[in-house]
């Protein structure tokens, strides 16, 4: 019998993952036999320079892209080989997304954006979910902004609405792609603190792709990628340690 993802205490994992773009000698190998798991309840940062394969890894883990070879699981569900509809419904119900920019639907107000995953599922949030959303809105300081449309919100507020949307369904895993990339440093710190507290206080599993050492220093665990492979796997580190590691990797390359 196969060991399941949850037996391993993981929220998501990939095995022998390879992704190549193009064919033959001209092909680019974005991921090269990567096997890794994202631990349940942890805030994991995935770091690496551009072209290291960190975004590709996240796309595949989150069910946004298909690998060339290898397998991927979200919870105990193997997602490699799922059809487009099953995959979409899985993302809707079990994955949360926070992007660098353009996170919100401009025609919907903040509350409309937060409730969108439920509405796409054709249902109203249950009483329990409603309570969860209310407490999220409270914690994220969005109570007075719910009727505002995205263009009436600051970048930091928009990102907090995106966090509320990503956490609202209590997903197996939240993926954040450079969530502070478009923010000033203060709003960026706020967003990172909110993500860290969601994982620490509420047991939310979060995977964050970033190339910012300060952002990664908020995480419980830091994975380093280079040339399509995992080059290091460290527990919580300071921004200085992370920056030093990145610099060393760049000098070595």
């Amino acid at each position, binding site marked *: 019998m196969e060991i399941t993802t949850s037996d391993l205490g993981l929220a998501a994992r990939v095995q022998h993952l390879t992704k190549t773009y193009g064919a033959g000698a001209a092909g680019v190998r974005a991921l090269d036999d990567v096997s890794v798991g994202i631990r349940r309840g942890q805030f994991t940062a995935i770091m690496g320079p551009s072209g290291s394969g960190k*975004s590709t890894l996240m*796309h595949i883990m989150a069910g*946004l*892209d298909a690998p060339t070879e290898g397998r991927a699981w979200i919870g105990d569900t193997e997602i490699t080989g799922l059809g*487009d*509809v099953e995959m*979409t*419904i899985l*993302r*809707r*119900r079990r994955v949360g*997304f926070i*992007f*660098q*920019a*353009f*996170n*919100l*639907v*401009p*025609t*919907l107000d903040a509350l*409309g954006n937060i409730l*969108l*995953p439920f*509405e*796409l*599922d*054709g249902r109203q949030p249950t009483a329990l979910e409603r309570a969860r959303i209310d407490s999220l809105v409270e914690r994220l300081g969005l109570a007075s902004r719910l009727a505002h*449309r*995205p*263009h009436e919100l600051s*970048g930091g507020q*928009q990102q907090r609405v995106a966090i509320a*949307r990503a956490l609202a369904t209590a997903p197996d895993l939240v993926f954040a*792609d450079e969530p502070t990339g*478009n923010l000033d440093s203060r709003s960026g710190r706020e967003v990172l603190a909110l993500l860290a507290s969601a994982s620490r206080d509420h047991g939310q599993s979060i995977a964050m792709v970033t190339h910012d050492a300060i952002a990664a220093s908020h995480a419980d665990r830091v994975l380093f990628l280079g040339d399509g492979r995992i080059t290091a796997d460290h527990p919580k580190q300071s921004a200085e340690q992370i920056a030093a590691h990145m610099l060393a990797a760049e000098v070595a390359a």
Partner: protein
Amino acid sequence: MSAVATVSRISPARSSSGRLHWLRERGMGASVLVSALAAAFGVILVEVTAYIGAVLQADPFIGDSETLAVVVMILSVLLVAVAMYVAAMVTANTFSTIIAGRTRRIALLRLIGASARSQRAEVTGQGFVVGLIGAVIGLASGVGFAALGVLIGESLLGVGAGDFTVLQPGVLFPVVGVALTTWLAAWIGSRRVLTVTPLQALGGSVERTHDDEAGRRGKHVGALVLIVVGVVLLAAGVVLGLITPLGVVVAFFGGLFSFTGLATASPLFMPPVLRLVGRLFGRGATARLAAENALRHPERSSRMAIGVVMGVALVTMFAVALESVKALMMRQSEGEFVDGFFAPMDAFASIMMVLVAVSAVIAAVGLVNLLTIGVVQRRRELGLLRAIGMTSTQVRRMVLLEAVHITVAATLTGLVLGVAYGWIAAQSLLGSVPVLPDYDPAGLVYPAVPWIPVAVIVVATAVLTVVAAVTPTRLATRVAPVEALAAD
């Protein structure tokens, strides 16, 4: 000053791959198509008018029947004007949509020193070229069709038209008209260029919605005056019609004024109609998103809808007017007319409907264009929706509902206006006609709505909607969820 010159030289629209490479930009083709359609339609109608005139003159029995020629000419002018108006609105829409897509580039050029006016002049110049190309294509194809028609007419029907030639100088009116209106439409559609600020080049700005027309009532004063004057004339026509059939002439101008006013002021009254129709779709996520999208650029959606409104209203008007006239004549004669009596009237109505349908085709091209560019410009948003869990079936339904939204709102408005105008036409013409039993004037006539033409209109707009949505839905479902993450 030299900076400006340099900037315009390096602007991509005039760069390396030929001066006209901007013509390949999405939406330009549609503008060429609609101006060509309008020009060809105009050319053909001019030819038909001239041909009928020639036939009548050559006929020894009818001789110089000036009246018929004049009536045909007035109708032709009206029909061509409607087609040109719809084409111009499609073009204005296309240009304002294209500019929305070019915002970043315009902002960058503004940032490094180009003036807003020079940027707008560039866009307007492109409109002129588009109009010119369309007009020339329309001229060639229109004259070609006319020549073919004359050949067929002579060989099949054996109708001689004396020394008729397809090279009528009159064809220059619609051709020049289309070139100029396209130019004007591009100028109107490019107003948005002036609102682009250099800051928008720096990115991170989130799209604003509902900003196009909010609080711009002042702009529509002229249109509102036209509507008021038109409505007064319509009422006067109806009252006058109780005394003399000439009431219809007064009502005609009332109709012309009020409809022009309504068309110009469409951004004022179409959004509420659109909003109302949006509520009919229910509260589901796809329905709500579709409803919001149709109202995202109220000015564009309204202009688009009014093209369909015009077609539907004109067809309904002819149908209702004719049916009301028939009903009254039945009353007058105790229903002793044989069916044959109405045949020429029905034939006339059918011809008018087919001719009006040309404008509907132009409106349909515009709808396809509006939806398609809308999808292309929303790729990241569609990617976001896909990422957070919208299935491609839901995407397809959303885009289709957007099209349905506009056509349903337009068809309803068109039917209401058409019934009103048709009834006013019949009433003002026949209110004074004596009827049985005691030959008193008819007084108030009830509007008679012929259900077959109405059913045809509804089915036709339904087909139009589905056809218009094919390309945009295909494009929309092709957007991959990863596109939400694209840096730009």
